[in-house]
């Protein structure tokens, strides 16, 4: 049970409790049988209403009994409707009937109120309120809004109540501005109210979105004043997550990388399109499904597509797709704003959306930094000084730097993330290291940016860069054939999304086994030297999915001792257990 303290009980007390439970259970069974029997006979009468009411008052979660009540109520609504339309009924009868129905509906609201009082988290009891309000001729929505406020006064985080509030506000035709004010009221009362900050962010999004594109348009003035508001909250309690989450949301409004985010209203763009002899590879700014990507290519064939994902072996939606065919596809490369469609042949040159790739890997820090960002950085710095053990100001400062100064502040970003992982918040060390890993990947990609985008080489080299994850390489899926990740902290490679890689070096990583990886099925060369791989069994499931492998370097691994065993399993592969 939730929120119930365990107290020492004697055997006597236990026995008494068991007896009481048995009695309650028998009473319940008796009433339940009666209810079910009446329902099965179609006796939706007052007795059925009072039987179900008696049980729901004690246990509001039995939705079947609410269903029975709803059926009864609907029958009475129909009956009243017929009576109102009938020429044989008198005005008095009509009035009486309507009044009786109204009483029934308000009684139902009262029952739901009583149920919510004893169980404020009952889905069924809250649902019944909305259901009734929708059926009342003139629901008292003002009163209902007050009730929501009262309930939130008792538990400001009750999400059932917040959800109900959303329904009532819509019924009462409350404007988003009014709901924004409502969030103001609650936040001013209590800064530590994640639910109210969330409600606020939704209201702001609804107020400031472009009717046509759906994109959010919040200007600098508003952002600045919102930051001022939330600043009060994090200065009040810098440990409170509510304010920091809201700050992060503000920080990312208008971000240059917004087009990559799943909730973005920006059109999905092609990042690269390239032909690789046996497939055409398409990389998009966000995950797409087959029907969508068909609008970018000159084929209607849905059968030869293959998607790659770091979390699923058979994704149906992905940023990275291959069309398996010996002849290249033609792709649409015009911008959505263009009026005519531009088709591009991929025979010799790949299509590369250079400016988007530059944004993705922070090649330029072009975004002018608004004044409020400077202030936010300073506020974080002040709090870091005041509360050096608090993770939030340091983490927020780092997030701001990642967004606005990823190149200029690279060293500080790395130092902050290490400090968070090693000293301040070791519970989430791997999470910080994953962010660090991505920052280092971006750094490395920037250094070789022109070479990667050029047609001379297909190499990506990210050595000794503390990579713990390969998230982020997928944007280069159409450009990289040779990848070298030597000397990093990778424990696994099966999440790698580089489906055109034929030559892979993962030497000197703390890898103990190799799992099958759909994106490496064309591998010809693999170097796993200096890894911790020790048994043939721990790598065979992987090798069985790579029929094209012809060279394997595994020097300085425990696997060297198993060379003969490995040779028996991989007869066609040139095994290199020792440096020449």
């Amino acid at each position, binding site marked *: *049970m*939730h*929120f*119930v*303290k*365990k*107290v020492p009980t004697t055997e006597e007390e236990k026995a008494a409790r068991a007896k009481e439970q048995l009695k309650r*259970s028998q009473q*319940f*069974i008796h009433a*339940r049988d009666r209810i*079910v029997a009446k329902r099965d006979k179609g006796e939706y009468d007052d007795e059925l209403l009072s039987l179900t009411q008696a049980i729901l008052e004690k*246990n509001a*979660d*039995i*939705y*079947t009994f*609410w*269903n029975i009540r709803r059926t009864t109520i609907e029958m009475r609504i129909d009956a009243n409707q017929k009576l109102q339309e009938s020429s044989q009924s008198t005005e008095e009868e009509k009035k009486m009937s309507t009044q009786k129905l109204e009483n029934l509906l308000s009684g139902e609201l009262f029952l739901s109120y009583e149920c919510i009082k004893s169980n404020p988290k009952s*889905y*069924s009891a809250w*649902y019944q309120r909305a259901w009734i309000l929708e059926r009342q001729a003139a629901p008292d929505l003002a009163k209902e809004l007050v009730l929501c406020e009262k309930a939130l006064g008792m*538990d400001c*985080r009750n*999400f059932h109540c*917040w*959800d109900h509030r*959303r329904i009532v506000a819509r019924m009462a035709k409350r404007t988003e501005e009014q709901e924004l004010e409502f969030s103001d009221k609650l936040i001013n009362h209590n800064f530590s109210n*994640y639910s109210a900050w*969330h409600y606020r*962010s*939704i209201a702001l999004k609804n107020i400031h979105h472009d009717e046509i594109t759906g994109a959010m348009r919040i200007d600098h003035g508003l952002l600045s004043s919102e930051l001022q508001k939330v600043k009060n909250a994090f200065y009040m309690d810098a440990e409170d*997550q*509510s304010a920091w*989450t809201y700050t992060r*949301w503000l920080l*990312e409004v208008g971000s240059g990388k917004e087009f990559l*985010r*799943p*909730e973005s209203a920006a059109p999905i763009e092609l990042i690269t399109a390239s032909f690789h002899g046996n497939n055409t590879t398409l990389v998009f700014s966000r*995950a797409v*499904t087959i029907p969508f990507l068909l609008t970018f290519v000159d084929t209607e064939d849905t059968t030869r597509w293959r*998607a790659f*994902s*770091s*979390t*699923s072996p058979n*994704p*149906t*939606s*992905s*940023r990275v797709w291959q069309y398996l065919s010996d002849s290249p596809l033609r792709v649409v490369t015009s911008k959505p704003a263009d009026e005519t469609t531009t088709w591009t042949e991929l025979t010799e040159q790949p299509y590369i959306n250079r400016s988007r790739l530059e944004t993705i890997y922070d090649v330029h820090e072009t975004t002018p930094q608004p004044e409020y960002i400077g202030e936010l950085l300073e506020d974080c710095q002040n709090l870091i000084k005041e509360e050096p053990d608090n993770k939030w100001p340091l983490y927020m400062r780092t997030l701001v730097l990642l967004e606005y100064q990823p190149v200029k502040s690279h060293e500080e970003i790395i130092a902050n993330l290490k400090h968070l992982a090693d000293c301040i918040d070791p*519970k*989430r060390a*791997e*999470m910080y290291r*994953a*962010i660090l890993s991505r920052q280092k990947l971006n750094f490395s990609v920037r250094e070789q940016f022109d070479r990667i985008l050029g047609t001379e080489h297909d190499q990506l080299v990210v050595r000794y860069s503390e990579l713990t994850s390969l*998230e982020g390489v997928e944007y280069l899926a159409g450009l990289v054939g040779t990848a070298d990740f030597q000397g990093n902290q990778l424990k696994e490679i099966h*999440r790698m999304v580089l489906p055109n890689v034929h030559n892979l070096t993962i030497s000197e990583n703390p890898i103990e086994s190799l799992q099958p990886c759909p994106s490496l099925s064309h591998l010809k060369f693999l170097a796993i030297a200096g890894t911790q791989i020790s048994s043939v069994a721990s790598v065979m499931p992987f090798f069985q999915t790579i029929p094209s492998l012809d060279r394997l370097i595994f020097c300085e691994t425990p696997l060297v001792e198993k060379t003969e065993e490995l040779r028996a399993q991989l007869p066609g592969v040139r095994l290199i257990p020792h440096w020449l």
Partner: protein
Amino acid sequence: MSFAGLLDFARKDVELPQNSPKQLLRDLHSSFIQKYEKDKNTLHNGRAYPGQWNLLVCKCDGFDGRGIESSSKLNANNTFQLDKMSAEDIVDYVLSCRNVDGGYGPAPGHDSHLLHTLCAVQTLIIFDALQKADADSICEYVKGLQNKDGSFCGEISGEIDTRFTMCALATCHLLGRLSTVNIDSAMKFLLRCYNTDGGFGTRPGSESHSGQIYCCVGALAIVGRLDDIDRDRTAEWLAFRQCDSGGLNGRPEKLPDVCYSWWVLASLAILGRLNFIDQESMKNFIYACQDDETGGFADRPGDC
């Protein structure tokens, strides 16, 4: 709720008592569950609680040795097994909850619900009795609850919740009939419930919640569309659910509760980011939630 229970509202974390259990109390849990199993009153006549089957499913997973890997480890040191009779009883009971609409209720005589329909299918699969179910009518039932906007009602009343999307997709998936429902519109609705903090709520605009995230991430995984969300952002929100005590809470600034060890951890596992939290301190929190007198787990140490 006691006064001490009320005080919990004001706190944001707990301390693990010195004398709390430090390891898994297998035998005690076994007898705790066995008590439910032996009590036919609970099974057949008791309070027809939604969730009773969940208990059954956990029981079967945990102790029959046919479930998940960790449960087989549990079983290794455990003599308790469901006997054949109990298995038949359970299958019969599940089948007795079937309604004419094709769905299953929580107990005989109760209306069908997607939650219980999924539970029925899961239970029948655990006991190799799926052939006793009518897959066609189950699928018809599920399909009938999908709305035009892609969302699902949990049952006839019309209540909509992303939990029900998960139940619908999981049910069809387990029956090998995923194409029964409109996956595209289901995903469209699901993504409308995705928040910028990385989480999911019950309906569009609703606040993120760990349990809801599990349902939505699970639903995305079933249809192979995890790339439709920012997995790192979601995993980060989930990682911040870990409190200093090692326990996980369901939403920011709430007390840890052992049930979220499941919702959060399962979500992180699906996202491939189990390492984003500290597993040792989480285990210690779970151990401390055990009742070392009767067996079973409380929401947090010291509760019952």
